[in-house]
C-alpha cells in the first residue's frame, strides 16, 4: 500500500472523531456518492472555538484519512483559524497524498468551512429574531 503514507494509513485505520453530534451548532455536508466521496461534519462551538467535532464519510482511504485529520486539526481552533484550513495544510499534515487524491483533501476543508458557515448563519438568524 505504498501509494499512501504511514500517517494516511493510520488515520484511515483508526479514524478520530467518527460519528454525529445530534445537537450540533453547525453541520456541513459536501460531495455526493455519485462522485465517489461524501463528507458530513458536525461541530459544537464554544466561545468562538470549535469545542467538539465529529464526521461521517463515504469514500476511499484518502477521504476517510482526510476527514479524520481535519477533525483533529480543527478541534480547539478558533472559527477564524479553522476557516483558513486548506487542502495543502491537510495534505501536509498527512505527509502527503497522491496527486489524484488531492481533491479529497479539498473536500475535507470545504466540509469544515460549510459547517462553520452553517453555524454563523444560524447565529445571524438568532440575532435578528
Amino acid at each position: 500500500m505504498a501509494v499512501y503514507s504511514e500517517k494516511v494509513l493510520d488515520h484511515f485505520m483508526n479514524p478520530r472523531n467518527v460519528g454525529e453530534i445530534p445537537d450540533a451548532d453547525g453541520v456541513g455536508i459536501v460531495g455526493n456518492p455519485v462522485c465517489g466521496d461524501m463528507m458530513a461534519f458536525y461541530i459544537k462551538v464554544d466561545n468562538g472555538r470549535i469545542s467538539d467535532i465529529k464526521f461521517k464519510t463515504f469514500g476511499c482511504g484518502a477521504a476517510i484519512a482526510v476527514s479524520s485529520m481535519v477533525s483533529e486539526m480543527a478541534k480547539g481552533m478558533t472559527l477564524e483559524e479553522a476557516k483558513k484550513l486548506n487542502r495543502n495544510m491537510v495534505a501536509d499534515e498527512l505527509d502527503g497524498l497522491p496527486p489524484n487524491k488531492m481533491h479529497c483533501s479539498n473536500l475535507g476543508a470545504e466540509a469544515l468551512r460549510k459547517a462553520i458557515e452553517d453555524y454563523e448563519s444560524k447565529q445571524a438568524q438568532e440575532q435578528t429574531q
Partner: protein
Amino acid sequence: MREVYFDHAAATPLLPEVVEAMIPFLKEHWGNPLSLHRFGEKPREAMEKARVQVAELIGARPKEIYFTASGSEANNMAIKGVALMNQKRGKHIVVSAIEHHSVLNSAKTLEKLGFEVTIVPVDKYGLVNPDDVAAAVRKDTTLVSVMHANNEIGTIEPIAEIARAVKERGTRHFPYFHTDAVATAGILPIDVDELGVDLLSLAGNQFYGPHGAGALFVRRGVRIMPLIDGGIQESGRRAGTENVAAIVGLGTAAEVAKTQREEWARYLAPLRDRLIERLTTEIDHVYLTGHPTQRLPGHVSVCVEFIEGESMLLFLSMQGIAVSSGSTCTSRALKASHVLTAIGVPAALAQGSLVFTMGQGNTMEDVDYVMDVLPPIIRRLREMSPLYKA
C-alpha cells in the same frame, strides 16, 4: 498472516513448469531469433514451438498466431490494424459497450481519424444480444468486436451466435469479427472455427504465464495493417525483436492449460458459487453484478451498498486479502467503471464494487477466510458512512 490472492484477473502466479521453460532463454539462449548464426537457432525454434502451442490452444494454424507484448497490444492491433487497412472498403466499426479499454480507446482513436463507431449496449447481466450487433452492421462496416467474457463482471458472451448473426448480415468477407479472449483463453474451451471469429486476442498472464507475452490470432486472408513497422518479425505484421523468454512461457502455459483447463474450471466453480452465495445471503445490501450462471469460473463481482470499494480493498489488503474494485477512487483515472454503468448499476452503488478472481492456488478455506474478514470491515465502514442508516 494468512494470504489470499483473489486478483487473478490482474495477474496469475506462474506455473513452475512455465518458469522452468523460460529460464534457459534468459540464461543461455538469449540470442536474437532472427540471427542466422547459431545464437539465433534455439530462440527461433523455441518461439516456433510456442506458436504451435498457442495455436493448438485455440484450434488455429501456427501461421495465424502473431505474438505481441500484451493482450492490450493484441486488441490495438486487431481494431486499428483492420480498420486502417480496410478503410477503402468502409470506415465503420461496431463494438460492445463493455469492451476493455484497449478496444474502446482504440475505437476512440479511430473516431479521431474520421471513422464511425457504433457501440452496442448490453442487458443488465452484461449480455450482448446477437440481433443488436447484426442490426448495427452496415455496408461500410469492416470490423465487429465483442469480447468473449468480461473481466469486471465475469459474464460470458454468446460469441458463436453473435459472429453467426454478423456473418449472415454481412458480405462474404466483411465485416471481420474480432473477439477479445484475454479473460477466457486458457480458461474456457476455445476453437476459432467453432466460434466463427477472424481475429482473437489472448494474454499469457491470465492463465499462469508471464507478463509481456500476448498473441493475436489473425485468420488466413484477413488484411491487417502493422502498428509497429520495422523488420520482418512476425511476418512483417509486428516488428521488433520478440520477447523470447516470455513467449516460451506463454507457449508452455498454453500447452498446460489445454489439458488442465477443464479440471481447473471444475475446481473453481464451487469456490465461486460458495462465495457468491455467502456474500449475497450473509451480508445485507450486497448485489451480484454480471450473469448469475453464464460467468467465468472463479469470477465473483459484487456491489456493496453505502460504502466505497477502495476503502474495503485497503482493509482487506491489511488482512492479507488481495482483491480488485471498479470504483471511481480505485481507478487512477477517477472515472466510474464503464462496465457497471453499461449494465445499469446506479453510480452510487457502483462505488461499492468488489471483484474477486480466483485461481488454482485458492481453496474453500480462502473463501471462508474472506467471509470471516469482510463482514466486520463492511460493518465498520457503514458505521462511518453518512449514507447508511442501521
